[in-house]
């Protein structure tokens, strides 16, 4: 192919300029591949880390809730899920999930009587079933004591404090709380009543991931929590169907419509008292291949009085960070490639103008415009192809080396938001390479359009007048 021959030799004839342009395309390709790999790895690691340590794949919460669940719903806790026991039983048997844990987010006070001095301190907490929590999230590193009976042994009731919380009490209240210390938990009811529950410090933990969240969160076992907040109610099975239906509608009209309806008369002696857990959310980890959509569909069919939030909805800002970084990388990539397009286009135009006589001669010899166009397209594709292939190969080697190591260590504050604190593991994926090929192809075409237009407008007269 004579066009390929002319293109290749023309590139070799202008070595220095072409090497510089090649270097630009090489670096641009590396930036795309590395940037996209970083972005993909960030998204993947962020998602995995949030799901593994934070939210699970989906979070169930009361359908009465007006807000989405978040890790920080302490000041305005979500409404209690009334039938969490039934839901957890269904989760155990439906075959859709790997594990699940119900959580109650709340805040209260602890009264400490130590060394003859009585101090009340505030604390926010997750009230959980320790065994299920430990089986679902691996975010707890015990500094002293055990995480309740999560490993089969240990104390089942009490408080697990975070290290930071322990240090804060020492600094702000001069209270040194340690494993085994007795405390009195205090809850304040809606009418201002105070409930007290004796408890103890079971252990001190340090969060493995997302310390910027979990440093402020302590744990309380669910049994102590239920007692502290008097979560007792009526078993819905002992209520007439019309009452249950009206309650399920959740509107004032339906509930007040029960008045005067004889079929809805309730015989109070038949009501069965039931101790409620007080759980506000249930975090669910789904099995591999089970989609959130399928899970939502199935749980909707069950008619539980709950809504379902995705991990992204629940993680809020933390999930947004990954998307933000991807967006920034994409933006930078586009910017780089616009610059590359302009530089490449400029160089090709200079090439065209330098070769006016040559192009005019070809046209005078009867070369069609397509012939001239093909020469410049070959030049662009050859230059960009070779440079981008080299860029992709260099990126591949670099990613493979980094992926084989311990990962990319970023500043702690960045790592906390991206991966919960772990080094960023790079993932070798075909997608960044495919995207780089596509983008380089696009750049080759876009950067060539105008120079080729200039070239094909050169008339044979130019060759005659090129004396």
């Amino acid at each position, binding site marked *: 192919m004579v066009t390929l*021959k002319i293109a290749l030799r023309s590139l070799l004839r202008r070595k220095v300029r072409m090497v510089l342009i090649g270097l630009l395309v090489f670096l641009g390709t590396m930036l795309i591949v590395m940037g996209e790999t970083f972005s993909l790895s960030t998204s993947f690691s962020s998602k995995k880390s949030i799901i593994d340590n934070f939210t699970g794949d989906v979070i169930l919460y009361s359908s009465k809730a007006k807000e989405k669940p978040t890790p920080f719903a302490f000041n305005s806790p979500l409404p209690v899920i009334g039938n969490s026991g039934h839901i957890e039983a269904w989760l155990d048997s439906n075959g859709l999930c790997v594990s699940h844990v119900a959580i109650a987010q709340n805040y209260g006070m602890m009264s400490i009587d130590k060394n003859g001095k009585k101090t009340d301190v505030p604390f926010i907490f997750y009230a959980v079933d320790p065994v299920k929590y430990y089986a679902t999230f691996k975010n707890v590193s015990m500094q002293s004591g055990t995480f309740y009976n999560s490993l089969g042994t240990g104390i089942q009731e009490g408080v697990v404090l975070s290290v930071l919380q322990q240090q804060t009490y020492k600094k702000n209240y001069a209270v040194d709380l340690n494993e085994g210390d007795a405390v009195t938990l205090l809850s304040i009811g809606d009418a201002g009543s105070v409930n007290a529950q004796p408890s103890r410090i079971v252990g001190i933990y340090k969060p493995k991931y997302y310390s910027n969240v979990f440093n402020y969160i302590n744990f309380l076992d669910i049994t102590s929590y239920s007692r502290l907040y008097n979560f007792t109610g009526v078993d819905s099975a002992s209520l007439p169907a019309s009452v249950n239906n009206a309650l399920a509608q959740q509107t004032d009209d339906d509930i007040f419509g029960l008045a005067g309806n004889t079929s809805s008369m309730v015989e109070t002696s038949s009501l069965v008292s039931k101790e409620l857990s007080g759980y506000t959310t249930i975090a669910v980890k789904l099995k591999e291949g089970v989609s959130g959509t399928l899970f939502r569909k199935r749980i909707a069919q069950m008619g539980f009085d709950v809504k379902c939030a995705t991990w992204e909805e629940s993680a809020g800002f933390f999930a947004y960070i990954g998307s933000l970084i991807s967006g920034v990388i994409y933006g930078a990539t586009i910017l780089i490639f616009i610059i590359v397009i302009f530089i490449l286009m400029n160089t090709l135009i200079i090439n065209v103008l330098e070769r006016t006589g040559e192009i005019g*001669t070809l046209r*005078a*010899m*009867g070369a069609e415009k397509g*012939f001239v166009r093909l020469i410049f397209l070959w030049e662009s594709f050859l230059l960009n192809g070779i440079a981008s292939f080299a860029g992709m190969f260099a990126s591949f080697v670099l990613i493979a080396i980094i992926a084989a190591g311990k990962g990319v260590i970023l500043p702690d504050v960045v790592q906390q938001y991206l991966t919960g604190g772990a080094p960023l593991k790079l993932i070798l994926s075909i997608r960044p390479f495919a995207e780089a090929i596509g983008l380089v192809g696009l750049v080759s075409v876009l950067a060539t359009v105008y120079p080729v237009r200039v070239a094909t407008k050169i008339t044979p*007269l130019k060759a*005659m007048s090129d004396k």
Partner: protein
Amino acid sequence: MAPADTVIKLSEVRKEYMLGTTLVEALRGVSLEVKRGEFLAVAGPSGSGKSTILNMIGCIDTPTAGTIIINGKEVEHLSDRDLTRYRRVTVSFIFQSFNLIPVLNVYENIELPLLLQKVGSQTERHERVMHFINEVGLSDRIKNKPTELSGGQRQRVAIARALVTRPVMVLADEPTANLDSATGGKILDLMQKINAAEGTTFVFSTHDTHIMDHAQRIVHILDGLIVSDEKKAG
């Protein structure tokens, strides 16, 4: 309608263009008929309109007024594709500055018009290329790039390139202007030899009286007008 042995006919061709704010009349009503096998010199001083006439004959420039007829068709009715085909098949050019493709060697430069014409097999192309390389005496320079050749050698490559497609007509714009007189004479001898052997029409421009002596027909042009058209006997 031009006679069958007429390659091209120019009738009252005018060419005007603007040079800055000045209107330049390059041709002021030129009529010329070129017949097959002619060895024709367009002679005149610089700026007289020699190159413009050649450009009109080669259909690489268009007249402001008048008609140019090629193979019985007026040029203004031909499409860009038709004109490109005309340049590829019917006419070949020899440029004053040789205009070889710098990245191709001697053989490849001469082969290029055949590739543009999509001429048959590689064997056929090779035979034709080698024939003209031998004709111009460059068989020992096949692999050389244009930059490795002397001016005379480059012009011989340009002649071989112009002839390899066996065109009806070769247009040469001052083909010896960049050569010394001895080399120029040899180039003209070569063109004459091919004209006699192949019957190829040659139209060349010159202002050199020694070069004009080689021509069978000399068209003198001055200030955009043909002032004389003389044929040599024999």
